[in-house]
């Protein structure tokens, strides 16, 4: 039994090596196929990276659906704390943070790059601010609006600012991109199957005589199909790896201009590359699509080759 299993394994190794050998014997044709597959795989990957970077660059706007409540100048810190306390008791509010004028000025001095200029100020021009974070179930447009009216009604409040609409639009755009990604992946995945299927079809036609003889001496459809499946898997694997290479090259090329752009905004943002998990999925997609394309093609075309004398 173990001997039979070992020989079964040896057969697979042999089929794999012979497939590899055939690809190597026709490097130009194989390379063209691999490039087409890589291009089809790199586009969805690129979209995914774009979405990732858009999210990272904007610091995750999902938690940005909050309100900044600016108090009138001259309202003391104690009053601000008291207001925050009563706001915390209201439904629909997750938590409230008081940012005192002094703390805000210190932060501004540290982060804005105007530190020296601020030193010239004799008094702190900033008001105290309440940072209000709505509860997760109160992030809709309507409940944000009611929160805004609640704070605006207080006499100590100067201005209530919400970025909700902007954030929602941004999230909607990301959502569109995510859908686009799924559609592009599906369409291009079908393309990969077609490309590999066609390549395998040509390969089968080229080796028709060999397939006939193999069937004549008792080779089953499964046996004849095996090397073609490995070929499809190898194409998918090579295409996935090349797509990874292309993405890495593109990221390297973009790193400097993006860094320059980020610097102009005073940010130290760096491009986010694909995660190991995303690369895993990329390679897995390539291999699966390659196998699928080869399987479909081999199943259709091998059946039509029956030995005739």
């Amino acid at each position, binding site marked *: 039994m173990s001997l039979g299993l070992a020989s079964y394994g040896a057969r697979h190794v042999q089929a794999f090596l012979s497939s590899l050998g055939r690809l190597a014997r026709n490097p130009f044709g194989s390379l063209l196929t691999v490039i087409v597959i890589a291009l089809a795989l790199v586009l969805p990957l690129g979209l995914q990276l774009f979405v990732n970077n858009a999210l990272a660059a904007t610091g995750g706007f999902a938690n940005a659906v909050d309100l900044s409540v600016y108090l009138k100048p001259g309202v003391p810190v104690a009053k601000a704390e008291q207001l925050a306390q009563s706001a915390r008791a209201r439904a629909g509010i997750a938590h409230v943070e008081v940012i005192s004028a002094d703390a805000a000025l210190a932060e501004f001095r540290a982060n804005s790059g105007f530190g020296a200029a601020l030193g010239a100020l004799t008094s702190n021009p900033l008001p105290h601010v309440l940072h209000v974070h709505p509860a997760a179930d109160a992030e809709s447009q309507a409940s944000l609006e009611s929160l805004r009216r609640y704070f605006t009604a207080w006499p100590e409040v100067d201005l209530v600012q919400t970025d909700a609409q902007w954030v929602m639009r941004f999230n909607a755009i990301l959502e569109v991109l995510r859908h686009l990604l799924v559609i592009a992946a599906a369409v291009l995945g079908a393309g990969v199957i077609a490309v590999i299927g066609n390549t395998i079809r040509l390969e089968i036609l080229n080796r028709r*005589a060999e397939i006939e003889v193999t069937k004549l001496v*008792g080779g089953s459809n499964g046996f004849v199909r095996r090397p073609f499946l490995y070929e499809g898997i190898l194409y998918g694997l090579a295409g996935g790896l090349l797509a990874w290479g292309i993405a890495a090259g593109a990221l390297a090329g973009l790193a400097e201009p993006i860094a320059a752009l980020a610097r102009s905004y005073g940010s130290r943002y760096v491009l986010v590359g694909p995660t190991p998990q995303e690369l895993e999925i990329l390679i897995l997609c390539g291999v699966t699509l390659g196998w699928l394309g080869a399987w479909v093609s081999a199943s259709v075309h091998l059946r039509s080759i029956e030995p005739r004398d």
Partner: protein
Amino acid sequence: MIIFDRVSKRYPNGRAGLTNLSLSIDAGEMVFLTGRSGAGKSTVLKLITLLERPTRGTVVVGGKNTATLAKRHMPAFRRGIGIVFQDHKLLPERPVYDNVALPLVVADTPLKEIDKRVRAALDQVGLLGKERALPLELSVGEQQRVGIARAVVSKPALLIADEPTGNLDPDLALEVMRLFKRFQEVGVTVVIATHAVHLVRELAQREIALDDGHIQGADIDPLPGMVATR
């Protein structure tokens, strides 16, 4: 080993290959199918190896009715038959060793066993030492013997040959026929279609002479039961 019961074969183009043919070949026999081109020799062999199916009648090979054999069992069925072709059908890009090993490889035979059997088969046809040669580097006679080695390597109980000496000069042809005889002597059933009447006489084995899809004359005792119900 082989029974044809009132077998007719008509090809799609309307040509009749066989008409109401009955014959029986016992296990361990060596039988020559003779007759002119188009007499039905190749059709008989194709029906035995399931390259064709009969239009009417029953073909039984090794106790199996070929009409009821499912397509997925065909590979296993073919593995039980060694076939030698006139044009030997070797893979030109593969060395002799790979060509001979093919029937064992498709049967998932362990590598050690393959090595042993391939060498034994090449030894039997006198080609030991030519394992790494490509078929086209060999003479026509040697190529035919590689084809025979491939046919016998999996030790089939039945050996079928279609004009195995068609491309060989008389000396080589006799040598190849004697090789087949040696396989018969160790218990293999051998069925050979051939034009070479002088070789058939030389080997003095049973001959089934076909003419226009029938059995010619009375070289063969027809199976009584089959004739009675005709």
